[in-house]
């Protein structure tokens, strides 16, 4: 515990005696009880909120804010009423989710290829860095959705519009993370690679890319979240199919129950994407955590 006076006096000697921190009267009992109860408390709070929602919505019926039980029933009917051979997924699920995920996948692959290649170039080549890093910072700082009207002019209402907007929203994140990762690759690894006479391709493929992978993966994880936002927003704005379109269509036709059910679907898709990315990241970067532990 550093007192505020010590913090504001940078010229004070580092070994200045500090008053002993005040000891709470019964630290052990209180802390232990809290640490045991915390997960339970969290769950109780969530449950209480959901129950509260249900009770409130039943007590004050309105079409804008339906009770949770109705939303879940609607969710079941909308998305999970299909035959067992298709994992119970409904036709509506396929017509809505497939276009959205296809756009997201295509755009993310494009962003990954361009972002990783561009990030490496920026990190390894000072000329390119000088030329392009101001542009990268500009686009990182700009809310990319402002480009939607421009993209609509260029692409019209087409998949290309959605893909472009998702790509443009995520590529800079991947690029800046890759560039940071590549610039931070340990010099000893590069020296080793150089003394073994690795070709340029071998150097990038076997040393620089894996060494920078932790940061690249972090960039990908963040950009998938952003990518999902861009899918939905671009589908709000201009498309004829997709989960974002469904939300908008139901909202415009006063189908608030279906709107909430689509909202729940989007939340679940986001959760699944997050879990999958985290799992892939853990597998791919096993060496990094182990190396970190070994160094302790």
């Amino acid at each position: 515990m550093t007192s505020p006076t010590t913090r504001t006096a940078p010229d004070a000697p580092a070994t200045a005696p500090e008053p002993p921190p005040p000891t709470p009267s019964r630290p052990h009992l209180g802390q232990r009880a809290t640490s045991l109860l915390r997960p339970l408390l969290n769950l109780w709070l969530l449950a209480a909120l959901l129950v509260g929602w249900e009770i409130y919505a039943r007590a004050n019926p309105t079409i804008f804010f339906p009770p949770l039980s109705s939303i879940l029933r609607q969710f079941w009917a909308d998305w999970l009423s299909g035959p067992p051979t298709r994992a119970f997924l409904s036709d509506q699920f396929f017509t809505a989710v497939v276009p959205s995920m296809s756009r997201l996948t295509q755009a993310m692959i494009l962003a990954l290829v361009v972002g990783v290649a561009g990030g490496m170039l920026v990190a390894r080549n000072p000329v390119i860095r000088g030329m392009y890093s101001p542009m990268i910072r500009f686009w990182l700082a700009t809310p990319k959705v402002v480009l939607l009207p421009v993209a609509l002019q260029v692409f019209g209402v087409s998949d290309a519009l959605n893909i472009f907007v998702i790509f443009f929203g995520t590529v800079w994140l991947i690029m800046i993370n890759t560039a940071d990762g590549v610039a931070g690759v340990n010099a000893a690894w590069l020296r080793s690679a150089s003394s073994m006479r690795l070709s340029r391709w071998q150097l990038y493929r076997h040393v620089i890319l894996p060494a920078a992978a932790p940061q690249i993966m972090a960039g990908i994880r963040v950009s998938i979240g952003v990518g999902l936002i861009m899918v939905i927003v671009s589908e709000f704005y201009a498309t004829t199919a997709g989960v974002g379109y469904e939300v908008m269509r139901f909202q415009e036709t006063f189908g608030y129950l279906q709107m909430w059910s689509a909202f729940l679907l989007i939340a679940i898709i986001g959760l699944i994407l997050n879990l999958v990315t985290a799992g892939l990241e853990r597998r791919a970067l096993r060496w990094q955590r182990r190396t970190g532990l070994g160094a302790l």
Partner: protein
Amino acid sequence: MTLTIDNITKSYPSTKAGPRLALAPTSLTIGRNEFVCVVGPSGCGKSTMLMMMAGLLSPTDGQVRLGDTPVTGPPAGLSVVFQDYGRSLFPWMNIRRNLAIAGQAAGLPRAEIAVRVAEALTAVGLHKVEHLYPWQMSGGMQQRVAIARALVVRPDVMLMDEPFAAVDAQTRADLEDLVLKVRHDYQMTVVFVTHDIDEAVYLGDRVLVMQANPGRLLRDLPIDLPRPRDQVGTKLEPRFAQLRSEIFRLVMRPVEPAA
């Protein structure tokens, strides 16, 4: 192949007092299959000299030649073992891949790489480790892997930069004997930089003593101890004690201005 160092210097641009001389003009010839140890205090330019031999650092002036070819970058037929094994092996590759990459870089065919990897691991006394990762091994074992990686290309010259500075005494003695063994097996020239005088005398055919401010070569001493060397026997010999105290006096003597 002879390793020739022809009047090389290395200086770095400095702030006020002009460029700082890391290595004053140095010339030296290292013959085929020689084992040369380099000792000296820190800042004497011993690692700088080694990095220039490795083609990882270019001399400010002068030339390094391997055979008749000037060294302008890392040359073929020369391997380097670094001090920091934790940062020279690649933790995202298992041991087999860590070794194979050296063969791939040298453009060897796949089947040949497999043979060389097995041969190198046997030479350093490691068995059934192909599928382990560096971080699953002790420091001594990791440095054995680093030596094995250097052997994959069957080099004519192996340069070692304080390779055992970070391991315990017992492991260090084992690794010293290992270096003598692989040098014999592979018939290589070895240049071995160390700050440990006993280690230099025990291993070398020749010991180069260097001095700091500016870094320069002070003495080139032949080590006339019989081979094979033995951790106990060799170190008990009066000649060993004589040589080590002579080098100790050279290393410890007050810095005198360069001639």
